[in-house]
């Protein structure tokens, strides 16, 4: 068992980092593989929660990193705003800091961008135990290096995020979800690719490869999205989902409730053209389930057991597709990863004493 530290204030957070030679920050541990590191003390952020500043007219908010994204979504929702990348695992309790560190985007990523595109500033504790603020609190800022972006996907290995500032957008007036069945993975890919290049400005573009069906969401004023839906359904066979069905569909996607409980869950970054090959790879692994998101630029692959993880890794490497294991007993980087010299130099710059584990731990 890893010892657990639970700071309740920023001062305690700094103190916890300074006094612990080997430490890894965790949020609600909804992506447990990311923090499955032996021999480190875990630093839980769940005691550091709450929105510090939120001014709807500025389109920005600042919150402590341990704040559950669900709480943030509720506060923004009251003012008719939202984080357009649809933070994942909200119902499971995912925190804002964990969402950034995991670099995990939901279906809405398709339209306006992901975590990296909406993060504006961070306060973080570096490996020397200094509480630093980089980036800004306004929607636009070009002063200094863009460390906030770098922290997206950095898995807590370069610093402990304490406080994060985000840009938000007004929430569209209404949404409408369509389900478009296809013949096979190639058919799914054709729809994803074609739909992404249209005038429709789709809000989300996902697909289940197991069911060979595309799920797309329109967002905007009711008359407009009704008209666009008509045009889409004239191009491809399919149907409108009822509001309840739509709700279930997107919450299933956000919560990974389609994935195997207790299995291996892997995120992959790919291009839509690689999707059929990834789907073929999945079909060769016993019981694998595969969902594409972000118009086929990302996918989540779920295996019932870790047994096939090595074959998955080999397959991904052969396809040149990068991957990250979110949960389950599989290598953190199933397809390996590049290790340029600069990566260790930047790690040494932010964490000279290797207080935080490395990306390979």
């Amino acid at each position: 068992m890893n010892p657990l530290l639970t700071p309740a204030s920023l001062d305690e957070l700094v103190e916890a980092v300074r006094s612990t030679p080997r430490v890894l920050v965790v949020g609600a541990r909804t992506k447990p593989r990311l923090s499955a590191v032996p021999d480190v003390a875990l630093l839980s952020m769940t005691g550091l929660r709450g929105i510090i500043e939120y001014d709807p007219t500025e389109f920005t908010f600042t919150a402590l990193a341990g704040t559950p994204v669900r709480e943030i979504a509720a506060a923004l929702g009251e003012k008719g705003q939202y984080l357009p990348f649809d933070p994942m695992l909200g119902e499971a309790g995912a925190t804002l800091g964990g969402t950034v560190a995991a670099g995990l985007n939901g279906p809405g990523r398709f339209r306006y961008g992901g975590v990296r595109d909406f993060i504006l500033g961070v306060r973080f504790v570096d490996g020397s135990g200094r509480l630093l603020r980089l980036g800004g609190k306004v929607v636009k800022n070009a002063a200094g290096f863009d460390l906030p972006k770098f922290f997206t996907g950095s898995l807590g290995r370069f610093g402990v995020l304490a406080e994060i500032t985000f840009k938000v957008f007004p929430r569209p007036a209404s949404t409408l979800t369509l389900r478009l069945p296809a013949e096979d993975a190639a058919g799914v890919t054709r729809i994803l690719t074609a739909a992404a290049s249209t005038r429709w400005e789709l809000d989300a573009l996902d697909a289940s490869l197991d069911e060979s069906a595309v799920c797309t969401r329109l967002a905007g004023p009711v008359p407009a999205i009704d008209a666009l839906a008509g045009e889409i359904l004239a191009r491809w066979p399919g149907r409108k989902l009822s509001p309840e069905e739509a709700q279930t569909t997107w919450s299933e996607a956000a919560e990974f409730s389609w994935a195997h409980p207790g299995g291996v869950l892997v995120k992959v970054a790919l291009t839509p053209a690689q999707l059929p090959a990834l789907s073929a790879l999945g079909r060769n692994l016993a019981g694998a389930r595969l969902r594409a998101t972000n118009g086929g630029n990302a996918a989540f692959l779920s295996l019932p057991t870790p047994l096939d993880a090595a074959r998955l890794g080999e397959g991904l490497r052969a396809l040149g597709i990068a991957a990250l294991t979110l949960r389950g007993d599989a290598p953190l980087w199933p397809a390996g990863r590049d290790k340029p010299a600069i990566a260790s130099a930047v790690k040494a710059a932010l964490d000279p004493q290797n207080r935080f584990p490395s990306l390979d731990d």
Partner: protein
Amino acid sequence: MSLSPILTRLAALLPAGRLLTGPAQLASYESDGLTAFQERPLAVAVPETADEVVALVRFCHAERLPFVARGSGTSLSGGSLPIKEGIVITLNRLNRILRLDPAQRFAVVQPGVINAQVSVAAAPHGLHYAPDPSSQSICTIGGNVAFNSGGAHCLKHGMTSNHVLGIKAVLATGEVVEWGGASREQVGPDWCGLFVGNEGLFGIALEITLQLLPKSECFHTVLAGYRTLEQAGDAVSAIVASGLLPGAIEIMDALALEAASAAVHAEYPPGCEAVLIVELEGPRETVAVERVRLDEIIAASGPVEARPARDAEERLAIWKGRKSAFSAVGRLSPDFIVQDGVVPRRRLGEALRHINAWSREMGVRCANVFHAGDGNLHPLILYDGRVPGALERAEALAGRILKMCVAMGGSITGEHGVGVEKRQYLPDMFSVDEIDCMKRIAAAFDPCSIANPGKMFPVAGALALVQHGLHPLEKAGLISRE
């Protein structure tokens, strides 16, 4: 004239004629868009391939020879100002679009590709490259990447960084790295995100993968004139509060309007202290609904006159007036400095009141054109470099404005970068430890301090300013402020 030994060795890396060393050849590289600073480099290297760039950087690393990468030299913060004891590596000849994949909507370009050319190449496929700095017809993607450049459409579409998917670069250590790629997703730390906005301190971008977006089908662009700047600012707040998400919200003040009228014969409603430009974009069905809403909000905001563009031509005319504002203001005055501080949007009116008051008090004229939706100011501070003390007064006003932006919780720069010009103000935004952290990161990329040294971070002893400056390319008769 015989070359120094180091330049002789350097020249051997390139075919004959591609290391410029003559004073006349160097003259056009002495400044960038911030003409108040000038410096003559030892030489200018003109590579034509990525391999040549790598060889040059590795040479510089081995010889501890400072280098400044240069695109088109339009930086407004002195980012591409040469270093006296170093060389300039100019990237204009690496100007090919290496790949354009319309189905997957991305382009791979060399750093010297001009921003607007990406959209030109993408246009036949119904696609475009969203970031649109006003300098888009001349500035390069390499420069845009180094500065995380913005434009009028940042509110909805973001800046350069939000559109960069992959970067191949040679770092100042000589290491060649490739980050990201054609996918719009990634796993692991966002190295591309860190590289964008590095101001030339990390190395040289060799290939950049850009995301392309479908061109918006429909626009609704409204130009509205207001009696006072305050009213224009209130209109912005009302639009933002309405839940609409316009592609752009811009304001020009009276002096900027006067300049644009003279330069491009744009016609604005008479007697206005400010003009607001708001643009909705999207599928025609969406715009049809949202424009009604926008028109109501604007009508309720008490404009002197509101003019919706009736067709594509009128829309382009509105944007032409806006985008020519910098160069137009240049006609009002022999010299000017452009600031680009950011304030929280709700404090725009207050910020402008201060700027106007200081401008009167200090006797320095100042025109304002700005990205109101982002709270990104662009005060154009006019001066005549031939008048003793004028530049110093202009800089003093600029300094007051920057400090005000920080005090209001904003930033010293929204999109032009810190460069040389604002480096002394970096400590107003960041603590000693924060600057130390950034310096450590810079040193990780560039342990020998050879990549654009002297930029972004404060240095002891200010640079000597020249009295008066046209852009070197203007002096050479190659460009004019049209």
